[in-house]
């Protein structure tokens, strides 16, 4: 058990190391000089001023020391939770921006992932029951999962928000409110959340449904299912068993999907101007704020790693096979 997790941790550590290194390289090896951009924005013409400003910002961003030292400093700062300053929202620390955006992204992602996972699995299992269901309902799943996140988001925004006017089109809460625990504010939060959530939910839902359908068909063909059927067990029991077993690979699937899901959340947030991490990325790209991009990227990697680790742990907990294997009882 310890070995297994030790090894997983090694992979995670390596991934993290690689990610951080790539990350560190972002602003340094990007075409164009972020500092020059910053200075240029200040519209300073006087050569002396330009030099002074350049020096000032180079120092501020720690770019005035040798490259290896920058790298070391980067790690140092990282371990202190310091992701540097944003250029887009200068001089706000990148970590502040991320911390502010996280709740929104999580509020979208966590319910969307969990609910779509749950509902998709149920639905897929349901569709696998009958041939006709499989041929009529399941195609919905294919269409949904083949839909680009942003397109579904656009369609929802257009139809339900712009044309029908039922939901707001953008942002996280009404501009006529300041954050508080008032019912108006919470209601506004909810109303703004529905569409981005729905577009994420639907696309993922399709994917899970199909995954479950395919898995459960294999499970229903498995020997243990045949044995139960031969012994006259009720169909429900067999399906229940098949479902439980099919859900397990879906957990691993969840881990592998995280990257994609994050990307989906990203474009969805962009469509709805939802002030989460994805929106932040877009802004970082548009304003070429590499420090922010760096921070967000790092954060995503970290998030995905942690989520992966949790899923791994959950998986080993729920699947007796891995658990037993890990304890070496099988050997």
């Amino acid at each position: 058990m310890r070995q297994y997790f030790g090894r997983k941790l090694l992979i995670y550590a390596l991934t993290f190391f690689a990610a951080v290194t790539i990350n560190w390289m972002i602003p340094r090896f990007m075409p164009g000089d972020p500092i020059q951009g910053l200075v240029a924005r200040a519209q300073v013409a006087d050569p002396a001023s330009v030099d002074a400003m350049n020096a000032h910002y180079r120092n501020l961003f720690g770019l005035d020391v040798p490259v290896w030292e920058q790298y070391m400093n980067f790690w140092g700062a990282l371990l202190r939770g310091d992701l540097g300053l944003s250029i887009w929202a200068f001089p706000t620390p990148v970590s502040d921006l991320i911390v502010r955006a996280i709740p929104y992204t999580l509020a979208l992602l966590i319910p969307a992932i969990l609910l779509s996972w749950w509902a998709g699995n149920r639905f897929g299992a349901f569709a696998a029951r009958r041939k006709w269901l499989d041929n009529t309902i399941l195609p919905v799943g294919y269409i949904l999962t083949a839909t680009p996140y942003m397109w579904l988001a656009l369609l929802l925004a257009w139809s339900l928000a712009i044309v029908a006017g039922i939901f707001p089109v953008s942002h996280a809460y009404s501009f006529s409110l300041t954050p508080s625990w008032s019912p108006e504010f919470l209601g506004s939060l909810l109303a703004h959340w529905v569409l981005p959530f729905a577009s994420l939910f639907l696309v993922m839902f399709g994917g899970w449904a199909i995954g479950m359908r395919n898995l459960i068909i294999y499970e229903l063909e498995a020997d243990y299912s045949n044995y139960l059927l031969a012994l006259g067990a009720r169909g429900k029991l067999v399906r229940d068993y098949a479902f439980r077993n099919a859900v397990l690979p879906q957990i691993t699937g969840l881990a592998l999907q995280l990257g994609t899901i994050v990307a989906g959340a990203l474009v969805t947030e962009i469509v709805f101007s939802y002030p989460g991490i994805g929106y932040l990325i877009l802004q970082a790209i548009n304003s070429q704020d590499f420090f922010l991009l760096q921070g967000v990227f790092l954060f995503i990697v970290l998030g995905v790693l942690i989520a992966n680790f949790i899923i791994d742990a959950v998986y080993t907990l729920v699947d007796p096979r891995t658990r037993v294997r890990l304890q070496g009882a099988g050997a």
Partner: protein
Amino acid sequence: MSQADQISLPAESGGAAPGQPAAPAPVAARRGGDTLYFALRNKKLVGGLIVVLALLVLGVVGPLVHTNSPTEYLGTPGQSPGGEWLMGTTMFGQDVLAQFLHGLRSTFLVGALGGGLAAIVGMAVGFVAGYRGGLVDEVLNMLTNILLVIPTLAVLIIIAAYLKVRGVMVEALFIGFTSWPWAARAVRSQTLTLASRDFVDLARLSGVPTWKIITRDIAPNMSSYLFMTFILLFGGAVLAAATLDFIGLGPTDGMSLGLMLNNAVRWSALQLGLWWWFVPPGLGITAVVGALYVMNVGLDEVFNPRLREM
């Protein structure tokens, strides 16, 4: 990287790969005309194939027949579909139909190229890791796992930002080089099971070199599996490209469906009600990818006799 993973992930522990046969069933695949018989009778496969082919023809032949330039300002801006402009015009009076046709073309290009490249890399890694085993496997596996965890879109964004001019090709290249890990993993596990089959040992006993064993003995046995992997990678590449295009990191010259979406949004087609500008490209992507996925299931049923009759 792609949504495709969702329906194709070969579950590590479960053994069964959703959307794909747990183990390729080439024996059945070779039994005379059975495969063809089932293939032709499989509604999912045939339906999917028809849609894909129809769209492919549209994309390939369309621009030759409908010769309007997708970027030139040809008509009155913001014309709704019908009459002179079958699918209307954009804010600038560009022909949406021309854009759609060219977009389809590059969609297929990205899919084929990106998916193909990913398939090649994934297969190479998967074959070598699965067949060689040992340290090679460990290292490749580690690499695969790392890439699998890193959100590739973020990497793509970074790489994309490097280039002054990005074409469809370059985009396909990126996607190809980042979306292979799951395929590698799937191929590896298949190779592992195949490599332990006796005919592989027999080939070794016949003095056949490793690369020949992989290409001539192992790969043909997984051909259906590999083909399905390619299909899923294809779909995944199309979606990934659409995402990139949408956030403005798509091709800077050329037209793609994702770019159409991006342009439509940037130029407020939603608010201005120019639905014909953003509905068709998304529909095109969905149709291509969805049809591919449906085809994949159909193929699965064809190749895997167990699934033929549920």
